[in-house]
């Protein structure tokens, strides 16, 4: 019985509950390199108060002393836990540390509210049973919090850093207030269910704000969409490389066919020649820019030029694109050209369907420009044209995709609609050769 009592009392202690709340983030935290040292520290923190009691007050009942001395200094314990938490796990910034520390405090405090309410509903329970109930509440509450807030939290320190920089101070301040108020009411007012329920609700709301349950989803959805588009484009790119390879093989075959023509009879030659003519016309659509990915992309778009009767001209020094990953080249030019195609395909005057692409460099500066006529009333939102297509959410991502890639390589975008001609320019600094 004594052992069970001890265990229950252990789990019911404030500082242990706090540690348990902190450990709810186990999936997101990395143990410090001295693994055993970290675990030892955590163990010491948990066990020390009891050892202290055993050494100095061996005769007294455990539940008298622990809550008595150690238990009253809530803030002290919270700070002690903070120190232990900091030394046990790796946090790259103070902000990241607070991102996990503050909710741990709040979660434990919610448990405290629930336990207090439970104690007043069943005031007659013996000590061990009360602790047992607290333990049950701990398991239940921590499980619910885990499901609602924690297990879907993205891993890695990157997550905590995208939060608004006012968030952490706000929740810290909120937690501080709620805590302080709770300590004050416990000391100065008689128990009311209302006060503890309000406290619990405050904790829940603070957690909701802290984990940004409502704001992150929109950003995440956008990010998912962009990644999906990028992936779709990667797949297309692979298919196209295969097509280009096939064509290269074909032209290789053609060379031999032409050579063998010399040994054919005239009638054989004629039919062979017309076959060759067709094959070669097809191949002529490809352009060589000294960058394979761009070549593939331009080859693909050549079908669009044909289909919509678009006059497309291109001056491109593809060798300057080698700093960019193929997927990004494919995506950047694909989106830029698709935007141009979309703009011109609805122009009635076919002669006006002109699209011009330029990829040139000056010094260490690479300049990519796509120019085309447009006839729609382009509306602008934050410097970028709002698509007029119905499926706005999906198509607006063409430009966002370009923006994402520009940012990735430290580039700059400039959009100039001028006198009926739309110019999209993306500029990149190239690596310096030292």
């Amino acid at each position, binding site marked *: 019985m004594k052992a069970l009592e001890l265990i229950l009392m252990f789990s019911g202690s404030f500082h242990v509950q706090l540690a348990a709340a902190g450990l709810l983030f186990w999936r997101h935290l990395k143990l410090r390199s001295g693994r055993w040292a970290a675990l030892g520290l955590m163990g010491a923190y948990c066990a020390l108060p009891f050892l202290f009691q055993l050494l100095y007050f061996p005769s007294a009942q455990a539940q008298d002393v622990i809550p008595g001395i150690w238990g009253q200094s809530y803030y002290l314990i919270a700070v002690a836990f903070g120190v232990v938490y900091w030394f046990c796990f790796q946090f790259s910034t103070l902000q990241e540390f607070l991102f996990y520390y503050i909710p741990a405090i709040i979660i434990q405090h919610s448990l405290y509210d629930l336990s207090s309410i439970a104690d007043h509903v069943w005031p007659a329970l013996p000590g061990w049973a009360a602790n047992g109930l607290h333990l049950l509440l701990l398991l239940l509450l921590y499980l619910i919090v885990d499901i609602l807030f924690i297990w879907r939290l993205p891993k890695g320190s990157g997550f905590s850093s995208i939060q608004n920089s006012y968030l952490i101070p706000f929740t810290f301040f909120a937690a501080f207030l709620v805590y302080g108020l709770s300590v004050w009411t416990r000391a100065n007012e008689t128990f009311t269910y209302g006060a503890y329920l309000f406290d619990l609700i405050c904790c829940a709301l603070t957690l909701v704000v802290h984990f940004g349950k409502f704001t992150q989803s929109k950003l995440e959805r956008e990010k998912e969409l962009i990644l999906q588009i990028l992936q779709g484009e990667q797949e297309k790119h692979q298919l196209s490389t295969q097509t280009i390879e096939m064509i290269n093989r074909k032209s290789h075959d053609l060379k031999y066919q032409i050579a063998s023509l010399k040994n054919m009879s005239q009638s054989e030659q004629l039919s062979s020649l017309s076959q060759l003519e067709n094959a070669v016309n097809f191949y002529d659509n490809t*352009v*060589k*820019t000294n960058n394979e990915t761009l070549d593939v992309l331009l080859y693909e778009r050549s079908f669009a030029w044909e289909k919509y009767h678009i*006059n497309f*001209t*291109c*001056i*491109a*020094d593809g060798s300057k694109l080698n700093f960019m990953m193929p997927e990004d080249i494919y995506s950047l030019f694909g989106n830029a050209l698709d935007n141009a195609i979309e703009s011109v395909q609805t122009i009635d*005057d076919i*002669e*006006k369907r*002109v699209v*011009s692409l*330029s*990829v*040139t*460099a*000056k*010094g*260490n*500066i690479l*300049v990519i*420009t796509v*120019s085309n*006529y447009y006839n729609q009333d382009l509306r602008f939102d934050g410097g970028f044209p709002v698509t007029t297509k119905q499926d706005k959410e999906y198509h607006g991502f063409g430009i966002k995709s370009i923006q994402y890639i520009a940012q990735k390589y430290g580039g*700059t*975008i*400039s959009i*100039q609609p001028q*006198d009926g*001609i739309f*110019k999209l*320019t*993306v*500029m990149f*600094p190239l690596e*310096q050769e030292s």
Partner: protein
Amino acid sequence: MIRLAIVEDEDSNAEILSGHIQRYAAQTGEKIISTRFSNGVDFISDYSFSFDIIFMDIKMPYMDGMTAAKKLREIDPEVALIFVTNLKQYAIHGYEVNALDYIVKPLSYYDFEMKFVKALRYVNEHQSTSTFIDIEDGKKKILLSKLYYIEVRGRKLYFHTEEGCFETRGQLSALEEQLREKRFIRCDNSYLINLRHVMEIHKNDLLVGEDLIPVSRRKKAEVMVKIAEYLSGGIS
């Protein structure tokens, strides 16, 4: 007034091009004079820097357009050049001779117009405007196209040009207004740079002419966009 050269061996194409030029001139009131050459050799042999824009065919007798363009660039690295051709495979490497763009046959008006407007803007950027400043022994004429940047130190202004550095008194802000149209921007409190001479972009500074000029954090985004805009009009 704009002076054009049309280097084209086929009369029919030359006529179509002239037609488009006249149409543009009529629509906009721009005064344009064009001279025809039937091949690259004639064009190069008498070249005298008397043209603003050159339309060059690629497939020509005696000397093809690309070769003619290379020879042209040896003499004149800056004049606006537009190819007129169907040989896309060659034209795509137009950057080697600093071609602004090219027009494909059949020469439709709008294809011509888009590239011509680009060339006109390019010519405008490269007009040889100049300003005068007071230096120690009198006045000095500064060709804006050769001015890299202006630096302010105390109450003095330093004009860094291709021909050296000249010191004068004055206020940078007054000049800024005057020069803004001529593609000069303030990238930092102490520097007014010529976009035309931005050669390299680094994390916190730019190589303008031969010197590294810092860019203030506040202005960085704006400066980058202005550089992108400037370079989108053609690289000289």
